């Protein structure tokens, strides 16, 4: 394991100290908690937006704190859901009395910890709503689909909407609407290593890729010989467009996400093919995002996320 760390046990603490120091104009840390909060939160009259999860997915989620995005991000240990008391502090810090929306990725740990936090918040008289992002098509059973890069689109759209005055129920409804129209699928070339364990999360042969690997290295759908970028892009895109049932004339947001060590150059090569295929099917791209939005430490790989737009969502895309 070759990493710039001091002690595997302190990576999250030290990362948070670094983030708080580097971005003190925009955010602050809740003293004693692994929670970063928008500097001017709570914003009077605005629904608070809280997300979080295991660390190791940076810039998710602290990187999405700010105007038209999150009010707070809760950081768990690497690839491990944060505990309810941490989440509760985030909720309390951003609630202006208008309630707090919790944006959770669908992993059993995250869902349970956010559930408990919501119960604790209720006991303290704070309204919350919880939405669970399930965009990862690699899992067959819809209910078990993991939350991945699509989460960022929920942050963005709902973040803008609550800034424009949506109330808690409306925000939750919009978030569920976005989630219902978002699908992702990834492919990995090499694993990441969690500092505490020091061992790679999985192994792949030198000429192998895995379709559908989860953002923590959870097993995907299939391993096969590595394919040219265009073939990979087409396979990912076909899967998501089929499941979303995107049709001729419709409009989408495309997000090509890097998992950690895949160069931006390769992401653009993948994007190029995806864009060409969409153009060929007369599906127009409203917004394109190419980069590391939801990483998995130094995993090599990428994913394609598609959001099928309608007017409800479009007005909140800035």
């Amino acid at each position, binding site marked *: 394991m070759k990493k710039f760390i001091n002690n595997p046990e302190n990576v999250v603490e030290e990362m948070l100290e670094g983030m708080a120091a580097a971005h003190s104009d925009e955010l602050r840390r809740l003293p004693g908690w692994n929670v970063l909060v928008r500097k001017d939160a709570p914003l009077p009259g605005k629904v608070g937006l809280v997300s979080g999860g*295991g660390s190791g997915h940076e810039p998710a989620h602290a990187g999405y704190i700010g105007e038209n995005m999150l009010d707070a991000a809760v950081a*768990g*240990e*690497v*690839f*491990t*859901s*944060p*505990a*309810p*008391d*941490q989440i509760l502090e985030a909720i309390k810090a951003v609630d202006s009395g208008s309630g707090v929306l919790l944006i959770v990725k669908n*992993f*059993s*740990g995250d869902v*349970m*910890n956010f*559930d*408990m936090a919501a119960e604790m918040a209720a006991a303290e008289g704070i309204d919350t709503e919880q939405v669970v992002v399930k965009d990862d098509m690699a*899992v067959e059973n819809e209910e*078990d689909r*993991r939350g991945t890069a699509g989460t960022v689109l929920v942050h963005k759209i709902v973040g803008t909407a609550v800034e424009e005055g949506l109330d808690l129920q409306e925000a939750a409804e919009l978030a569920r609407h976005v989630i219902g129209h978002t699908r992702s699928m990834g492919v990995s070339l090499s694993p990441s290593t*969690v500092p*505490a*364990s020091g*061992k790679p*999360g999985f192994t792949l042969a030198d000429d192998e890729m895995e379709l559908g690997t*989860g953002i*923590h*290295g*959870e*097993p995907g759908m299939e391993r096969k010989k590595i394919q040219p970028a265009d073939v990979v892009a087409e396979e990912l895109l076909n899967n998501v467009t089929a499941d979303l049932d995107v049709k001729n004339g419709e409009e989408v947001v495309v997000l090509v996400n890097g998992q950690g060590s895949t160069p931006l150059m390769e992401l653009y090569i993948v994007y190029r093919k995806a864009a060409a295929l969409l153009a060929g099917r007369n599906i127009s791209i409203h917004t394109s995002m190419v980069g590391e939005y939801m990483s998995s430490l130094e995993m090599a790989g990428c994913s394609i996320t598609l959001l099928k737009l309608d007017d409800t969502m479009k007005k909140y895309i800035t």
Partner: protein
Amino acid sequence: MELTTNDMKQWLLTAGEKMQDNKEYLSELDQAIGDGDHGHNMARGFQEAADGVKGSGEEDIGSIVKSAAMTLISKIGGASGPLYGTAFLKASNEWKDKTSLTQNELAQGLEAAVEGVKTRGKAESGGKTMLDVWVPVVEYVQQRDLVPSELAAKAKESMEQTEGMKANKGRASYYGEESKTHIDPGAYSSYLLFEALAEALDKEEV
């Protein structure tokens, strides 16, 4: 049998030691069909809970277990944190103000714990989770005269049987059929927990 405040403390202390001693093994089990953090999560949480016990005064069983529960909830993280935390929290409600438990009272607490885990995890036994140790162990405590060595054997046997089950909850579910060739990490940590209980009760009888 009788379980005193001291026995309860001993249970938690021994559990702490066992999680620490088996940290690497638990994480290895989790590496195979999960994300490899279960040992670190459990060791971190139970260590803190044990430290809390050491620093506690002459309290009743309910408050000792409740404060352990809160520690587990806030320190384990992941999926097992809310589950173990909820289990101990539900049990602590049953053990409020008590300074000693009969077998029946012990069973009532454990029963509440199992219900808590099922609700929190939206799971039943048979899904290759910690419940596959908890459910048979609690049944044993409800139905038989508790003999510590038998309790430990029941936990061990149940844990071993999770090898061969197909996971349908938690991260292990993503492994599908592949999950069958491995013991569930949460089942293993639950076995350690009940082995610690057996040892705490055993000491008492000496």
